[in-house]
């Protein structure tokens, strides 16, 4: 017979006691701010605070949709997220296969170790280095361009370069560390499959095509779905640090716009209305992605 709720509460009291501060954390630092989004439906008044300010309905959402900047920011966020996904998804798979096919194990370990390193550097350090390397007068990259006989490029002042820089540096930061999941999948492939393929006369290329790649398909599917869900999760830090007034046309994404109009400009209600609209789209994406991954991959994020 199942014990009653009261008995279970009594039995689990130690665990509930341990859980209490954790729950308190989630309530105070995650759920209270979540309910704070009501200010996007209110006229936030500094003196009255979030809860006592006047209701204004969808006023700020209408403002945003009427703002000619709005579409540009939505487009920037979507395009940056989409391009990032298109380039960041396949590169770790290719690198993982190269690692796997490397016959000198020590060399492979060495390259692996080195390639994870940028992942652990802060966005401030990464962005600072990028700014230095891309400098038109003293940066190493422009030195090479000049050396090859071309004009230096003002990378960080040109809107058309922002996405390329953002995505290329993201690949540089993440490709190594992202190979880990694929390497785990590759390590789990049964060696007998290769044996069988060789018996059938498959060469190295055929073995890669028919044994190695199919071996990581489940991992590929899961990563694909999860990354598709997180497509709008762009780093505020990096867009904020690398973007500037000259490149707003492409570098201004939802999070930097919210920071500028809200925190700096003081339009709290307006800025949170924009943020909420994007968060809802993002939530739908993640939720759908997780449902699909549970169906397809028989595994999920939670």
């Amino acid at each position, binding site marked *: 017979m199942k014990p009653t709720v009261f008995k279970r509460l009594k039995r689990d009291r130690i665990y509930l006691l341990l859980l209490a501060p954790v729950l308190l*954390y989630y309530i105070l630092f995650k759920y209270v701010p979540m309910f*704070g989004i009501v200010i996007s439906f209110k006229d936030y008044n500094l003196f009255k605070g979030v809860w006592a300010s006047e209701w204004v309905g969808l006023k700020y959402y209408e403002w945003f949709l009427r703002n000619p900047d709005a579409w540009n920011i939505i487009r920037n966020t979507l395009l940056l997220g989409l391009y990032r996904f298109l380039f960041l998804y396949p590169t770790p798979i290719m690198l993982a296969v190269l690692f796997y096919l490397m016959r*000198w194990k020590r060399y492979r370990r060495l390259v692996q170790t080195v*390639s994870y390193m940028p992942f652990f550097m802060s966005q*401030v*350090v990464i962005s*600072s280095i990028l700014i230095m390397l891309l400098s038109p007068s003293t940066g190493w990259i422009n030195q090479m361009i000049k050396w090859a006989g071309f004009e230096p490029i003002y990378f960080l002042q040109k809107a058309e370069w922002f996405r390329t820089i953002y995505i290329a540096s993201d690949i540089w930061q993440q490709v190594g560390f992202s190979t880990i999941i694929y390497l785990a999948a590759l390590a789990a492939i049964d060696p007998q499959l290769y044996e069988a393929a060789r018996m059938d006369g498959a060469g190295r290329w055929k073995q890669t095509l028919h044994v190695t790649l199919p071996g990581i398909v489940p991992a590929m599917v899961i990563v694909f779905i999860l990354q598709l869900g997180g497509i709008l999760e762009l780093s505020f830090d990096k867009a904020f640090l690398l973007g500037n007034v000259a490149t707003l046309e492409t570098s201004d994404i939802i999070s930097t716009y919210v920071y500028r109009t809200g925190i700096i400009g003081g339009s709290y209600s307006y800025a949170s209305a924009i943020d909420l609209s994007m*968060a809802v789209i993002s939530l739908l994406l993640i939720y759908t992605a997780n449902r699909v991954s549970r169906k397809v991959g028989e595994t999920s994020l939670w």
Partner: protein
Amino acid sequence: MVRRGQIRIFDIVNFLLLAFVAFASLFPFIHMASVALSSPEYVVRNVVGLWPRGFQWDAVSAALGDKRLWIGYRNTLLYLVLGSCISMTLTIMGAYALSRKSLIFGKAVMMIIVFTIMFNGGMIPFYLVMKSYGLMDTIWAMVLPSAINTYNLIIMRTFFQGLPVEIEESGRIDGLSDFGLLPSIIIPLSKPVLMTVGLFYAVEIWNSFSAALLLLRDPNLFPLQLMIRNLVVVGQSGDVLETAAASGKTVVLESLKYALILLGSLPIIMVYPFIQKHFEQGALIGSVKG
């Protein structure tokens, strides 16, 4: 699976491709150190590539002479120690309780927690609520709002769930209570996961930037990353240069900036070789979530 045999063209191409990956991963850091340690004449002529030319410490010592950098280091260390203790305590408590399969309301609590991965109030409500808690311009702003990382909590919970039940039962026979099991059995058995999650928290706190940008106004509380950003990206390093010039050092701005970035990343670069395998382990546990 590669069979022993002759070296083919592919092996050579692969060798070169991986050499390029290694070079690309390291070059920016090596170049940064080289410029920071080169003498001004070579830096001005832009001839510093992979190794320092006219080796000298002037740029690094000029950077070290700036008080703001030391304030940043001190604050970051404070946040690191305090934050790691709070984060680990809370994460262990939560993960241990939630690792009980029969825990009453366990599933509901887990859903409440996981939902926060998918949705949050966004920057403005976060800022206003933290302000209303009185966290603005206090050291708590840097340790409390990010105290629990949900992914870390899940990693640890999954590990606890995987511990053999028999050991726990033998602990109970020896007279340990539910609470007593944690320090005397669970924690000693969980060193790998504690190490991994602890490192994740430490790196996260060391690198954190936007919380400071949002919640701190007092420069005396700024962590290292915010200091580096103000000095390098915003360009307040000019006055460090003037101080250095006044003391008779010849330093160029580029060397100085690289020296500042170098000092901001040096601790991680130095400990990286020793902790790298733990990250790999963490990423593997993390990628298979129950």
